[in-house]
């Protein structure tokens, strides 16, 4: 029987971006409302897992030309980097700080170094979850 996944693939094309947006929303909103790097990263990875389920691994690899192992490594590096940065400024390791900045589109916005830390968390989670699932499923094949 020939597989016909047209509906699934079409739906995925739309849903993928909705999930990505939701993940980014969760990630950015984390400091003031429920969400944050961990959940954000998990949701992002679930989007990719969906892609892998619907399309085959080769196809997704062509569309996403990055290695998820490196994503994870980059995440840990970012998180450690923010900690190191505070040492450079003479503060204890992992001291976070915020600035109020007037941005052109968003208006007055609060920017903080914890966002970078959170980005590290999110990238690590994304990278690790996708790596594990890919690793196991490749082994299964």
């Amino acid at each position: 029987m020939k597989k016909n996944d047209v509906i699934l693939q079409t739906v995925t094309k739309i849903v993928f971006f909705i999930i990505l947006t939701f993940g980014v929303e969760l990630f950015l909103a984390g400091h003031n409302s429920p969400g944050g790097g961990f959940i954000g990263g998990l949701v992002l990875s679930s989007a990719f897992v969906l892609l892998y389920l619907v399309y085959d691994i080769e196809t997704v690899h062509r569309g996403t030309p990055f290695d998820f192992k490196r994503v994870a490594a980059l995440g840990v590096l970012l998180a450690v980097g923010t900690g190191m940065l505070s040492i450079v400024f003479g503060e204890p390791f992992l001291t976070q700080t915020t600035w109020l900045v007037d941005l052109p589109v968003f208006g007055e916005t609060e920017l903080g170094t914890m966002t970078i830390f959170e980005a590290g968390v999110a990238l690590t989670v994304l990278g690790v979850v996708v790596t594990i699932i890919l690793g196991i499923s490749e082994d299964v094949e």
Partner: protein
Amino acid sequence: MVGRRILLEFVLLIFLPVIFAILVPFAYKKIKGIHTGWFVFLVPLVLFGYYLSFLPLVMDGGHASSELNWIPSLGIAFTSYIDGLSLLFTLLITGIGSLVVLYSVFYMDREKEDLGSFYVYLLIFMTAMLGVVQSDNTMTLYLFWELTSISSFLLIGFWYTKDKSRFGALKSMMITVFGGLMMLGAFILLSIMGETFSVRELIAQAPELVSQPYFTLALILLLLGAFTKSAQFPFYIWLPDAMEAPTPVSAYLHSATMVKAGIYLVARFTPIFGTSSTWIWLVTGIGLLTLFWGSFFAVKQTDLKAILAFSTVSQLGLIMSLLGAGAISYHATAAMFGFATYAAIFHLINHAAFKGGLFMIAGIIDHETGTRDIRKLGGLMSVMPISFTVAAIGSLSMAGLPPFSGFLSKEMFLESMVALRHFELFNFDTWGIMFPIVAWIASVFTFTYSLYFVLKTFMGQKKFDKLPKQPHEAPIGMLISPMILATIVILVFFIPNVVGKWIIKPAVMAIQPTLYANPSAIDIHVKAWHGFGAVGLWLTIGVIAFGTLLYLTIPKWQPLYRIQPDKLSLNEGYDALMRGSEKGLNRVSRLYMTGKIRTYLLYMFAFMSVSIIALLFIKDAFVVDMNSFSAITLYGSLNAIVLILSVGFVVFAKSRLAAIIALGGVGYSVALFFVIFKAPDLALTQLVIETVSVALFLLAFKHLPALSSHGETKRIKVVNLIVSLSVGVMVTLVALSSHSQKMIPSISKYYKDTVESEAAGGNIVNVILVDYRGFDTLFEIAVLAIAGIAVLGMIRLRVSRKEPNDENK
């Protein structure tokens, strides 16, 4: 007491042999033409000469001491303390050491033997022995003590390709190290009681030590150390097996020096423990028992060295019993008991001289005829006249005949034992009669085996055709040492009082420092002839008469030895102990180490629940405060029912798929609990994580074998049920009681107050995660990353591990 200033720090001399040992391998490897023994010979000879210079000082009752700090913060130093007793032993070690090295030059073959190792071990031993007898610090005494055990182990196993050598070495090691450790215990107890490691300071405190609670324990532990080293009953069993060592080693270690370390220890600690009746009974009693046992079994042996080994055991028992009797002088003023100590030291010197010589003769016979089996030997007198003469002198001295030194000390021994009868304390008046009887019977046997040793070997018919080699007299170099020792044996008989004045009296004074002001105050004059009224004379005549009779009738009473079956011997006991402990421990560890994780988890959980429930019970810590609970909501209870049902389903599910799905149900209802208890971040995370992990379970599910019972019987299931129930009860109890009694207020108020002002955020959970406690988060993502790497590694490396297997094919 007089001290003498000595320019040289003579404590360093203890280490001279071991320092010289470093050079021995070079001499052995580089200088091929000369026997290495000649270089080594210098060391004990020089030391002997040097230590002789202490004689005048010690004769006046003086002593010399010299110290080398080792661990000052713990009060541990190498302290060399030379008084009469130390000097006596030092002279024995260096003197007989010189003779043994000289003998070994001719005994050990330059081409065939690994002389480098031999002399290194021997020199290490020499240092160790010097250290034992000169140390004033108990800790360094113990250090040197163990060094004698180790070097003796190396020397017994010198011909390590032979099974019997290795067996003998291991056996002696096990027994002497056991004793050594016991002795360490005694030293530690003594240092706790007296707050010092110094033997001299301990002796000074002796009257206060007696009433201390650990006194008797320290006494018994110390005696265990002394008895194992000096081969007393029942620890003598290692000595006959140690005869696998090269003969110079047997002569040196196992007759003259190392086995006397225990004697030294007993003598050295007599001023501390001698006042105790336990000490007197144990030392005298065990000594006499050993004397009798060793002399009785010596006649059974067929190997020359085994006869000598049993004879050594027996003679050591004799010296030991005399030391025990000497301790009585702390209770009774009768001069007879001071006499016993004198006799002990006297016999110690005699024994070292004649036994060293006899061992060397046994080695010569082995060397020249190729066998030590007494049944194959006979009629060697005409072929080896010098060896015969020396052997005869040694044996007759051992038997206690005039005109040899053994006669004097043996007679003194018998008289001391007779005197014990008159001692009225500690039940000696009722049991005392046993001592002279046992001593006399043992002397008869001693006489018998002495005759047996010398007559069976040198007299009788010649059986040269059965010998591996054609016998002939040994080279003169090999005979020098035993000849010197035989000369000493005769010389001492004629000048006993000179030896007494120079060496014995200072040693006696060291053993009983409180009884005499100086050595010349010891009023003992040794005479060979006491007149017909002396008890000793008649006893000796009896010994000679009965001993000769026993010797002539050996074939008639030898079957007596078969009464004791081999299975009940002490050696068999040792073997059974070794085998049994190995097997038993194996069985015990196999009993609980099943190799199954289930079993280990069972231990852990059972222990955990039992100990914590017991703790709650003992400390009366279980409290339930109903007021601290919040109201039960409808959603909460419904969700709890769902949760319990799902958990029950997981446990009782028949298929794995059902269990996985039920587990998902558990996870989602926990997420719902997070919602109900107002933890949105947790709920979100829990939902996603649960989804991912269920997906992973399903991925793994495909490859798992069908659910099996893993061989679980009903009984195991019941045990599992009990343990899991108890863990559940334990956790519930702990949770309830820790909820009900909060000792410290929560710190969450601080977070609530400062989350806006300090951290510029509204989500407390997230701010705690990334700001207040970002450090934890950092390592959590590190854990995550490591897990990812590990998963990949496990999958990838499994593939690469197969490759080498393929190559093997």
